[in-house]
């Protein structure tokens, strides 16, 4: 997909995820908007996986550690043909598989996640299996900056470098806000790049909304042979909707009809998918 098409695809995804959150009356709006460009590039440019190859042992794997932003994953998977987009009309409804955190009941989801600090250890195990089985698939996991104080992340970070898992790439969606406040005030994890380097990782820092930078960076892994890669993606919570950007109330705020209409207008509704 051409970069300009990817940029338009991000707008489409933003509209779609807002529409399903608005329809369901629930969802993690701000974080889904901050990570959607990352997911866009992963699924449209990087990952060697499709609905047809999802059961292949050699597929690339994506594990979403920040499971609460599942709406971003759902709209991308739907767009990639893993399931019909209309299925998402049942988001968070009684009996629906499309619940508020990733579940393997949904085609395309690798692991059940939602409790924070779980994605990286599972990604490490998956990457380790790739090395042991001599398969060349790659493993990607998306972490929120708010979940980095979970100690399991750092246990896994040690393990990843110990086993030289250069088939592993962690992406930190560093939007700087978590449910209880600015991440730097709640528990400062900076200097984050230095921390990962000291744990034996190769680090790149980029603008997590820059499609070109995301593409170029993720195409370049491993950044150093023999080392796991981490992309620290600087993002904006609520990105793309002016009144949601950097506003903590949109962590799991749900737009009312007026807010929804305004957001859709800002996102260019009517160009393609109107939700």
């Amino acid at each position, binding site marked *: 997909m051409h970069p300009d098409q990817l940029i338009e695809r991000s707008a489409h995804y933003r509209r779609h995820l807002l529409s399903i959150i608005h329809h369901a009356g629930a969802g993690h709006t701000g974080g889904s908007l901050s990570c959607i460009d990352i997911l866009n590039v992963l699924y449209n440019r990087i990952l060697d996986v499709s609905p047809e190859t999802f059961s292949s042992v050699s597929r690339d794997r994506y594990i979403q550690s920040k499971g609460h932003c599942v709406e971003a994953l759902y709209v991308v998977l739907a767009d990639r043909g893993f399931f019909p987009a209309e299925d998402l009309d049942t988001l968070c409804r009684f009996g629906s598989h499309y619940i508020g955190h990733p579940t393997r009941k949904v085609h395309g989801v690798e*692991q059940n996640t939602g409790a924070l600090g779980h994605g990286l250890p*599972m990604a490490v*195990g*998956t990457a380790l*299996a790739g090395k042991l089985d001599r398969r060349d698939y790659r493993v990607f996991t998306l972490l929120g900056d708010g979940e980095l104080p979970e100690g*399991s992340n750092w*246990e896994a970070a040690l*393990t990843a470098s110990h086993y030289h898992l250069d088939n592993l790439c962690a992406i930190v969606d560093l939007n700087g806000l978590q449910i209880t406040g600015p991440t730097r005030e709640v528990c400062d994890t900076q200097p984050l790049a230095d921390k990962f380097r000291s744990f034996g990782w190769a680090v790149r820092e980029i603008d997590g909304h820059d499609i070109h930078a995301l593409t170029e960076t993720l195409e370049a892994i491993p950044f150093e042979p023999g080392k796991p890669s981490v992309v620290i993606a600087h993002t904006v919570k609520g990105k793309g909707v002016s009144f949601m950007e950097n506003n903590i109330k949109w962590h799991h705020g749900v737009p009312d009809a007026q807010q929804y209409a305004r957001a859709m207008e800002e996102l260019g509704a009517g160009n393609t998918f109107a939700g």
Partner: protein
Amino acid sequence: MGIAEQNLVGVAAGLASCGRKVFAVSPACFLTARSLEQIKNDVAYSDNPVTLVGISAGVSYGPLGSTHHSLHDLAALRAIHNLTIVVPGDNVETAAAVDAAAGCGHPVYLRFGKKPMPGSLTGAPLSEFTFGKGRIIRAGSDGSIIANGETVLPALQAAEALAEQGISLTVVSMHTVKPLDTELIDRLSADGRPMLTVEEHSVHGGLGEAIAGWLMQHRRHLPFKIMGLPDEYTVTGSQLEIFGHYGISSEGIAEAFLSLLV
């Protein structure tokens, strides 16, 4: 993996999801407490076929104290869906349980002690081993003792001592705590004869309460007692000394059974 139990279980889940046979081994006290969320989510909820092996369970670590005792693990794990829980009573059950866990394709918790186990409690090879099917070690007609793990041996010795007093007991190694062999419980409780359960676990939430729950809900009213570690700061000493203090010995178990006859 190093001393990092949460990571151990998460990595094990990732490995298992790629088709590898994975045994995640750590002292039961740490594996089932520190990694409980990983067991619940990464293993059981995601149905990644990891075999969790809790070693030196119960009070195996004796004088090392409560940090190293695991008297909570069965209670905690029983409440987690999609996890088979197995506490073998001797070496033949252990070997069969390891094979069965490796082949079953779903999450399993194997709970082992520390000291050498009896080769075979019956003196014979296992004729069959299935998760969820208790093993009758000794058949009798005056009641039953249902035990697991390292308490099966003293339970058997108690039954042998009582046999000399003319009391004939069935002794079961209930190696699988979940799923529970309710058919066997049904059979053993049908005539209302006394039943004693014994385990190296808190009296709360383990084998005894699993059986009690079934009995109560099926209107089986019979003399019944749960033996295990009481809800208190556990005394310290060797495993055998702790067992002795709480009556988990052939004499103590025999005495407890006799109390059900009064």
